[in-house]
């Protein structure tokens, strides 16, 4: 496991050096050097903004292909909550799941079912949670990484309960081992993903040592095949599907509604999340119970690897959830058992990451800040991006860090 593994990578051949991604990146992780973008690994949170904005599709997610299925005897696909938003509401999800299975899987596990369980667990946890408020949802790994890098004082607010993907994988593996007598390494678990940050979490998880997911395939990669396959299904197989409570996790605010907290704030879009985290850091939201921060606009339905337009997908999820014609099928006792035994909880401490730090030694760092101040006053303050840094201030920082020279500014010679 590399410490700085990231799923978001640049395809150099496609990159035109246009600076669109550099301007958009919320953590100033991108620079343009010799007409090519580069990502500063320590700062990237895998939010996928650069993927969305790149006109040449040079920013990509490192994914697996169906080929990797061959490595395993028993293959399980985890279908994400967002899958429900990718099809018209009259589409039978059993056909969709069958369509996924036909790609070469032995089993399809609905991530929303794990979200059902986590909904019950969080309801229980809230009754006597002693962490500082507001509690921060653990769903979005991009937001968690952002907190590690930019808001480390809020690490203690993050609720220490697994996200649905990881719980789904753990349950699926356990079931398959018990039911079929398989060994763990004979089982391959693949997450069908809308989200680069989740892909990163597979190789480089947060809160646990190792992920139970073995690979990731994007919705985009297989959408066409799912549609084709599902249209050929004649005999309906009944899959275990999530309740509308679990499905609702796919849109911003759905998670909080399912949990049933009243005093919550749900924020979507990474820039908005940053603004509200600033407020939380100032102690202005101590009276709020639950904070649901999601990097993508609309929530996971807005994940960059989805096919359907986020707003259409979101509206579908909303209509499903508002019907509320069902209940969570899992028993409360079972959920509590998974919680009490630690099966659904984090084991590791979340580390803060000093990616913004200028120097290990504070005296040196102080000198560097002074230099940055001086340099910034010499630069024109246009934030034009021509030097390959997102702002004049960022160029000044790069110069002090030793990555750039003042001559990189086209107004200086």
């Amino acid at each position, binding site marked *: 496991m590399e410490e700085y593994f990231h799923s978001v990578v640049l395809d150099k051949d496609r990159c035109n050096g246009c600076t669109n991604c550099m301007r958009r990146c919320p953590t100033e992780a991108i620079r343009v050097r010799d007409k090519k973008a580069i990502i500063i690994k320590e700062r990237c949170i895998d939010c996928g903004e650069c993927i969305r904005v790149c006109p040449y599709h040079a920013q990509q997610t490192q994914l697996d292909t169906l080929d990797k299925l061959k490595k395993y005897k028993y293959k399980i696909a985890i279908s994400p909550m967002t899958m429900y938003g990718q099809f018209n509401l009259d589409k039978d999800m059993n056909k969709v799941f069958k369509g996924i299975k036909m790609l070469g899987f032995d089993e399809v596990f609905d991530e929303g079912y794990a979200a059902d369980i986590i909904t019950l667990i969080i309801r229980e946890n809230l009754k006597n949670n002693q962490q500082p408020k507001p509690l921060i949802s653990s769903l979005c790994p991009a937001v968690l990484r952002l907190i590690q890098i*930019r808001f*480390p*004082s809020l*690490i203690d607010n993050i609720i220490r309960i697994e996200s649905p993907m990881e719980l789904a994988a753990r349950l699926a593996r356990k079931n398959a081992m018990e039911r079929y007598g398989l060994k763990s390494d004979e089982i391959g678990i693949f997450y069908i993903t809308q989200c680069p940050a989740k892909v990163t979490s597979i190789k480089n998880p947060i809160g646990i040592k190792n992920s139970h997911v073995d690979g990731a395939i994007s919705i985009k990669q297989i959408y066409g095949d799912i549609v084709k396959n599902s249209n050929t299904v004649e005999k309906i197989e009944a899959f275990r599907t999530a309740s509308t409570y679990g499905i609702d996790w796919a849109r911003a605010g759905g998670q909080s509604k399912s949990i049933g907290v009243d005093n919550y704030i749900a924020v979507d879009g990474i820039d908005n999340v940053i603004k509200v985290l*600033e407020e939380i*850091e*100032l*102690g202005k939201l101590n009276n709020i119970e639950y904070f649901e921060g999601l990097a993508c606009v609309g929530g996971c339905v807005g994940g960059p690897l989805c096919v359907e337009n986020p707003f259409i997908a979101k509206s579908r999820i909303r209509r499903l959830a508002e019907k509320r014609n069902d209940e969570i099928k899992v028993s409360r006792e079972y959920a509590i058992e998974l919680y009490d035994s630690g099966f659904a909880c984090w084991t590791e401490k979340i580390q*803060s990451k*000093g990616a*913004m*730090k*200028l*120097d*290990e030694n*504070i*005296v040196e*760092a*102080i*000198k*560097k*800040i*002074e230099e940055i101040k001086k340099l910034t006053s010499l630069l024109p303050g246009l934030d034009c991006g021509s030097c390959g840094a997102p702002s004049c201030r960022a160029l000044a*920082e790069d110069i002090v860090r030793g990555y750039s020279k003042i001559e990189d500014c086209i107004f200086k010679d």
Partner: protein
Amino acid sequence: MNEKNSIKLEYEILQNDFTRAGEASSNIKKILKQLGIEAKIVRKVAIATYEAEMNIVIHSYGGIIKVIITEQYIDIYAIDKGPGIKDIELAMKEGYSTAPNHIRELGFGAGMGLPNMKRCSDEFNIESTPNGKTEVYMRIYISK
């Protein structure tokens, strides 16, 4: 203290300027994070400077916030001109506020400003002359 090993920051704060309010504290916070100062300390300084900034915006005719960062401590001075504080002891009580209604409707002025600032700092001093200068001094130590 060796003058070379310190950073001096100064921000002008305007009366009633809610569009820029919070800028100084978020700027200070960013610098402290770049210095690699511990999250807990950064948070204290952020809250202290934010409250000081809001006090100047709401209650004064304008003022400045001065921050001096050394390797051992952070000093914050919030200096303004305005009506001043008549009864400092009363103003230090939680929930006591003289903010007018239109400010409270914006969600500010809940009377937590000064007590919050005091709670965040290791050393705290306030001096105020009616219809004159108010100066708040706060020191926060950087634990090693």
